[in-house]
């Protein structure tokens, strides 16, 4: 394990992504170490979502490279070390499924074909459900839950994997403030245990006190990479405040603050 620790959990080198002829990520370098909690901020169209999708192999890279735990993305096979929360409005599909069934899918990267769920799998699923405060809804259909609760189901599915790197793409959209705090604490606890966390968000919110590093993107480039305090100082002149806990800026987004994203349409 120690030899593995020498490598960063995620190593992104000179990465470029072009989608449908349009550059979305341009020459980005990013290293995330074990136990580091990094937030990627940016407005709509800043490329923050595409960056993490390219890092997990969901979007083809145009140039540059991605390494997960020292292995180039194409050769990486230890998918049980990655927990991923996609940006989705809902955890439901065309057929009913219980909360437990959806969260159990988080164990697939650790299960062999044609094997039943082992005790370790069930323990991990129970722990993940408890972590997002949904243990009492385990037997309910996900379609019956509210949007915020469904987001917590998707987060529980990633936690159930017991990953070494957690990648979350705007996981707290639609989650109420109390549960945002709860989730933040859960993530911080994982981070302390050595799990590397990359969290894409619109705004820092309750995360500010817990993240180690803030990466701000604009137009596909990293325009800031440093501590939350330094980020607050660096962007203080663009706007009085941009922490959403501040009552009179609630409703404003990172895009407003950074002055980007108005023309860009959907999240990239």
């Amino acid at each position, binding site marked *: 394990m120690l030899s593995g620790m020498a490598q960063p959990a995620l190593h992104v080198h000179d990465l470029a992504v072009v989608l449908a002829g349009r550059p979305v990520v341009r020459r980005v370098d990013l290293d995330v170490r074990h136990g580091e909690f990094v937030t990627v901020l940016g407005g709509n169209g800043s490329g923050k979502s595409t960056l993490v999708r390219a890092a997990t192999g969901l979007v083809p890279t145009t140039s540059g490279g991605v390494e997960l735990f020292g292995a180039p993305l194409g050769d990486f096979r230890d998918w049980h070390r990655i927990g991923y929360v996609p940006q989705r409005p809902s955890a439901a*599909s065309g057929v009913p499924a219980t909360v437990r069934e959806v969260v159990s899918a988080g164990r*697939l990267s650790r299960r062999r074909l044609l094997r039943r769920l082992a005790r370790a799998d069930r323990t991990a699923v129970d722990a993940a459900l408890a972590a997002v405060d949904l243990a009492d809804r385990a*037997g309910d259909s996900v379609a019956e839950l509210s949007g915020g609760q469904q987001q917590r189901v998707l987060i529980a599915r990633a936690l159930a994997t017991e990953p070494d790197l957690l990648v979350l793409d705007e996981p707290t959209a639609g989650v109420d403030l109390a549960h945002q705090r709860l989730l933040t604490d859960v993530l911080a606890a994982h981070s302390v245990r050595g799990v590397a966390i990359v969290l894409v968000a619109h705004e820092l919110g309750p995360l500010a006190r817990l993240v180690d590093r803030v990466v701000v993107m604009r137009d596909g480039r990293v325009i800031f990479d440093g501590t939350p305090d330094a980020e607050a100082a660096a962007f203080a002149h663009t706007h009085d405040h941009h922490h959403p806990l501040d009552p009179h800026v609630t409703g404003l987004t990172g895009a407003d603050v950074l002055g980007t994203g108005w023309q860009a349409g959907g999240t990239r």
Partner: protein
Amino acid sequence: MSLLSYDFMQRALVAALLTGLAAPAIGTYLVQKRLALLGDGIGHLALTGVALGLLTGQAPLLTAVVVAVAGATLIEVLRLRGKANGDVALALFFYGGIAAGVLLTGLAGGSAATLTSYLFGALTTVSDADLVLVAVLAVLVLGMSLGLAPQLFAVCQDEEHARVSGLRVDVYSVAISVLAAVTVTLAMRTVGLLLVSALMVVPVAAAQQVTRAFRATLALAMVLGVAASTSGVLASFYADTAPGPTIVLVALAGFATASPLGGLLRLRRRTRAPFEDEDRTDAAALVHELTEQHPHQHGEGCGHVAVEHGDHVDYVHDGHRHVPHDDHYDEH
């Protein structure tokens, strides 16, 4: 059980049983992927396969399997590469398949009756050789859709998460399409190509009216599928109707029964469900709503449904919740 003394009837019933098990099993995944109409498109394509068999003198069941599997693979590969809008691509295959099928059947000298027997099923057409092939294909479909259930569930539920879990989403997606194609052809003789998709979708739609879990939906859909296909075959024997439409109408009757039942179950669950954890102080301050005075004294065994709500008990009364408070009732 005199009808079981007919050989063709025994074969038709076994074929219906296998079809009734396999079609909803794979159909559950199609519905989950929101591709409920895929089976229809493949059915139309398989007609071209049947016609090729008639034209070349090969067994139509065999040529139908080959053409349907090839077409299903093509549709899925196009969809995965993002080259085809699923909706329009399916429509093109629909029309091409049925047009080529009818044209080629005509060239082969087949009559409208031949065509009808493939489109809507015919009890007397299941030969011993057919039955063996149907059994082999049914075992394949059931083995894959039950054995790989966790993987197929994950791929149909959330393709992106499945990919980051290291699953070969492309392989599983093509597998689902191929299994659907195989199912279409094995159902050809009992339900017919035009209606086979109904046996993949209708039992699933009926099952999910009353279920909350994926596994339960899958299992109940298979039970309903078998019930509809076997009773449909029996009914078509006595009423002298085409088996396909009979089976589908029986399945739809199942849906019509399940749907209001499901509505009742959901209502019952909702009235009895405890409230979400709410900020008690806020909620109590905002919603202190007094109900009208009424003579009834709520309490244990008063006949109203009791629901735990934090530190007290609510009583469901005409669809709202009452809680005793001093000399009156609050609405919760």
